[in-house]
């Protein structure tokens, strides 16, 4: 067994030193370098907005507005925080404000409506082997993951996305959502287990299995 957080890698931003220099130059007025600075984080900013809004078009508008806002307030960024976290916090705030403005009635799943303090018992014990990351290159796998995530109640989905998709730490997640570190841990545990249950059921029915007519996997 081993810690999963340390096992995978995202393509990250420019190395710390390089990024700091880039930030300093943008803060000094070289705004034409801003895109270069945020380019590695576009996906994460969009993902944060999408997790809250669950609508592609709204998420894009909000993500882009958040990045424009970040440019307008770049001088307020302080090096004590991670730049990626600062961007994501702006995106989350923008998305929450957008949702409030819209007063959208979002149909939430009944998943996880029970008391979050109560323990969560897994419902499915399907045997999962390790799924190679290459599986994500298949659209149906990504769709399956997206569908499962959208079935989570908002409070679990937001914590899970900030922690496991955006990879904020517990404190950063708590600060961004305005909840306690304990609540982050409790909701994260439940979110991970619920997603495992949602995906494990499909696993047994072969959602991850290779296409039946691929070479070497003929059905006859």
């Amino acid at each position: 067994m081993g810690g999963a957080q340390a096992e995978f890698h995202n393509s990250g931003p420019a190395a710390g030193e390089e990024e700091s220099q880039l930030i300093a130059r943008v803060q000094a007025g070289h705004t034409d370098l801003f895109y270069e600075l945020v380019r590695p984080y576009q996906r994460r900013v969009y993902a944060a907005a999408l997790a809250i809004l669950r609508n592609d078009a709204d998420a894009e508008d909000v993500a882009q507005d958040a990045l424009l806002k970040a440019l307008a307030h770049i001088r307020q960024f302080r090096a004590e925080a991670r730049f990626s976290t600062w961007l994501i916090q702006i995106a989350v705030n923008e998305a929450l404000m957008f949702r409030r403005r819209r007063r959208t009635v979002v149909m939430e799943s009944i998943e996880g409506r029970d008391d979050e303090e109560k323990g969560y018992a897994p419902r499915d014990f399907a045997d999962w082997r390790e799924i190679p990351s290459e599986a994500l290159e298949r659209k149906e796998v990504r769709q399956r993951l997206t569908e499962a995530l959208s079935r989570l109640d908002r409070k679990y989905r937001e914590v899970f996305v900030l922690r496991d998709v955006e990879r904020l730490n517990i404190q950063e997640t708590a600060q961004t959502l305005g909840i306690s570190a304990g609540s982050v841990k409790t909701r994260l545990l439940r979110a991970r287990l619920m997603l495992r249950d949602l995906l494990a059921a499909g696993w047994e029915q072969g959602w991850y299995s290779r296409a039946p007519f691929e070479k070497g996997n003929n059905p006859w």
Partner: protein
Amino acid sequence: MVIHCEDVWREVSNYLDGDVDPSLRQALEEHVKGCKHCTAVLDGTRNVVRLYGDERFVELPAGFSQRLKLKLESQAGAGRPGPGIGWSAWTMAAAAAIILAGGLWISRAANPSVPQQSALAKPGTDIPPDLLVAVSGSSRVFHVPECGLIHGKKDLKTMKAQEAIHQGLVPCVECLHQYLSRMQRRTRQWKAVDVSGLDRSELEKVLPNSEAEEPRAPVVRE
């Protein structure tokens, strides 16, 4: 330390985050070794964390970066210019895209089944399909982003020309006509020139800055 399945389910998330003390970690690992159900729970939860944490899970919408660059450029143009040389990497890329689009003339891309706003409105023809155009609010007209008619509008959206035409939007008779005329002239005049390493005086010799109506004439800031 004796561990039960419920303890594993309660701590599995902390365990994966490396947030359990060594004695609990050891007890959890020993329990999981002999428990098929807890092995399934741990493996599955680890898969969940790994798959959702992979950058391939969320895809940016097509054209997201292009639209962002356009907005950033627009914002930079509205605010004070930054110091230093004006040739940023993406300005160069945008200029290259415009020049490239100029060479890709396509014919008749209109969707006649979509009703037009006015009997006088004409569908877009001879417009490069990949040209980025701007639409304001619920307007049925699309413009090139520099068009004065949409200057300062806050509810601008950008899209490719082919998408705008497909939606039944019609080109702005003012800016699109001028743009296409300029591009035709530029396509005829354009020669590939390597400007890397040139200073301002050398750039002025090779760039067509004598044409007052030249679109987006490159600017070298002091």
